[in-house]
């Protein structure tokens, strides 16, 4: 009898203690960490595998810490399977294309956004609606006519061909216009009264005041091209003019490619984006959040 009460007392005490433990919080933290592992593990795998010989990568269980730095992977990644050094050239191509597109997008989008937000002219709303309408046309639906245009102009295998369809984006124009709508017109008028030309106003007053949007837009356009596989796939056949996504898909196809070199290519191809990301993560995250403002 007494034993039983003691036992029940004890268990209720234990129960009480258990109830005090914030189970929900622990569970949520656990889930957050599981998700974290899921998100980060493939990245860690990429980096560690790039330092291992292929025999270690496909060994079960996977060893997470490389025994030593297997430099041959990186050598092979840069040289390519046939030793033709197309990889550095392709990285350069990607950089040229992505930087140019980022530059022209920022320039043209801010110019157009400024024109639409701060000037009154006939047909302004029509132009704005027209540009917005192009957002509904997916690139995938127009790639074949574009391809025909590119072949007609004989700009396959050129930088011009890679860049031309992406000079400016409707979303960029939209973003710039929305941002500049709130820009006080008094500044512009003051500058005009002081005798500043319209181009001077644009480059010296409007552009410097748009840096956050410019950064987000620049990053979005840069990564859009860094990531672009479909269009280069259509118009580039020349190995020398290929961009990184094309190189990776070709490198992965080749029989001679081993797993370590593959991951070394992946690491090297991601370095520019990661540098951008860690230097400007505010704008990356902001770029994601910008879509929020689209509903307004």
């Amino acid at each position, binding site marked *: 009898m007494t034993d039983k009460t003691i036992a029940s007392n004890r268990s209720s005490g234990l129960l009480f203690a258990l109830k005090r433990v914030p189970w929900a919080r622990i569970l*949520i933290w656990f889930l*957050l960490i599981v*998700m974290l592992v*899921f*998100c*980060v593990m*493939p*990245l860690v*795998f*990429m980096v560690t595998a790039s330092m291992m010989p292929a025999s270690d*990568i*496909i060994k079960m269980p*996977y060893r997470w810490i490389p025994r030593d730095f297997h430099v041959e992977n990186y050598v092979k990644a840069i040289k390519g399977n046939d030793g033709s050094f197309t990889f550095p050239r392709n990285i350069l191509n990607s950089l040229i294309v992505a930087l140019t597109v980022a530059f022209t997008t920022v320039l*043209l*989008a801010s110019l*157009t956004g400024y*024109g*639409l937000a701060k*000037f*009154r002219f*006939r047909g302004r709303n029509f132009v704005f609606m027209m540009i917005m309408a*192009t957002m*509904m*046309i*997916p690139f*995938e*639906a*127009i*790639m*074949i*006519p574009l*391809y*025909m*245009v590119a072949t007609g102009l004989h700009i396959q295998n050129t930088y011009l061909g890679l860049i031309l369809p992406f*000079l*400016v984006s*409707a979303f960029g*124009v939209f973003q710039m216009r929305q941002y500049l709508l709130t820009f006080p017109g008094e500044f512009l008028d003051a500058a005009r009264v002081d005798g500043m030309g*319209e181009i001077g106003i*644009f480059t010296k007053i409007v552009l410097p005041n748009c840096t956050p949007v410019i950064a987000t837009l620049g990053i979005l356009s840069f*990564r859009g091209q860094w*990531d672009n*596989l*479909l269009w280069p796939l259509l118009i580039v056949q020349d190995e020398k003019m290929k961009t*990184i*996504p094309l190189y*990776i*898909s070709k490198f*992965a*196809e080749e029989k001679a490619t081993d797993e370590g070199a593959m991951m070394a290519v*992946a690491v090297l*191809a991601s370095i520019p984006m990661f540098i951008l990301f860690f230097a400007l*993560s505010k704008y*990356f*995250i902001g770029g*994601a*959040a910008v*879509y*929020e403002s689209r*509903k307004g």
Partner: protein
Amino acid sequence: MKKTTYRGIEKKQARWGVAFVVPSVLFFCLFSFYPIINAMFTSLFDKRILSLAAPKFLGLGNYIYIFKSASFWNSMRATLVFTLGTFIPLLVFSLMFATFIYNICGRRSRGFFQIAYYTPAVLSSVVAAAIWLLILAPPGLGNQVLNWLCRTPGVDRKWLANGTMLQFSTMLVYFWKYIGYFVILFITGLATIPPTIYEAATIDGSSKWQSFWRITVPLLKPTILLVSVMAMLQCLKTFSTQYLFTQSGGAAQDPINVITLNIYETGIRNQRIGRASAMSIVLFVIMLVLTFAQFKISKSDDVDY
């Protein structure tokens, strides 16, 4: 007199406005409107890339052909399966994790989780697919982790060999790449809900669970709808993952032959531009309907506090 000079300035300024707008307008005419009209036009002809003969007018022949072809319907199925199978988990999990992070974490750890979840999105989709091809290979991490979790050593899950698993694998890659992006979208959305509403609800005795369903979800409805339509449009356009899996990974094409892959194959590989254009137009119409739905929905559902 005064009025006329004023009008002159206005006119002069208007000219500058037009000058600023013209380059982009020209661009969009040449690289958006012309191609889509051209695609509509081409879809009515039997056009091939290298053929010198004049293209034959087919009327709706290409559409009839694709609507009868098994490969087109297989692509529609693959695209639909991929879209639903990706965007629903993305939506549910990103909302869930955004709520967790928003409610549990302090400012520092919130920033940390946001960045950590977002890192996969920094990789290009081709790199992402290349990594997952290795992870999902028979001796790869995918089997090891799953077997360790299920306590079934040595079972090959056939991630890339089995048709169903292959579809699941492509969804997994996409989910992994975009979860952080959508978590951030939802956290931004959550931050716009005034905390006083939650405080009032808590004082009235509402539990966390009730607060979530009765406050967060209704107030976040515009964001949820926006994000879901955006995710759907993204998923409909998926290409890189499927291309890399079939080209480089040697996976079977049929289960994951999404519409964009099919357009590419038909138009470029098989040089049937007319048919490919017809498929493009079908894709365009689907996306147009979805975008209009988005506009309609997001207009009618704005919340004011």
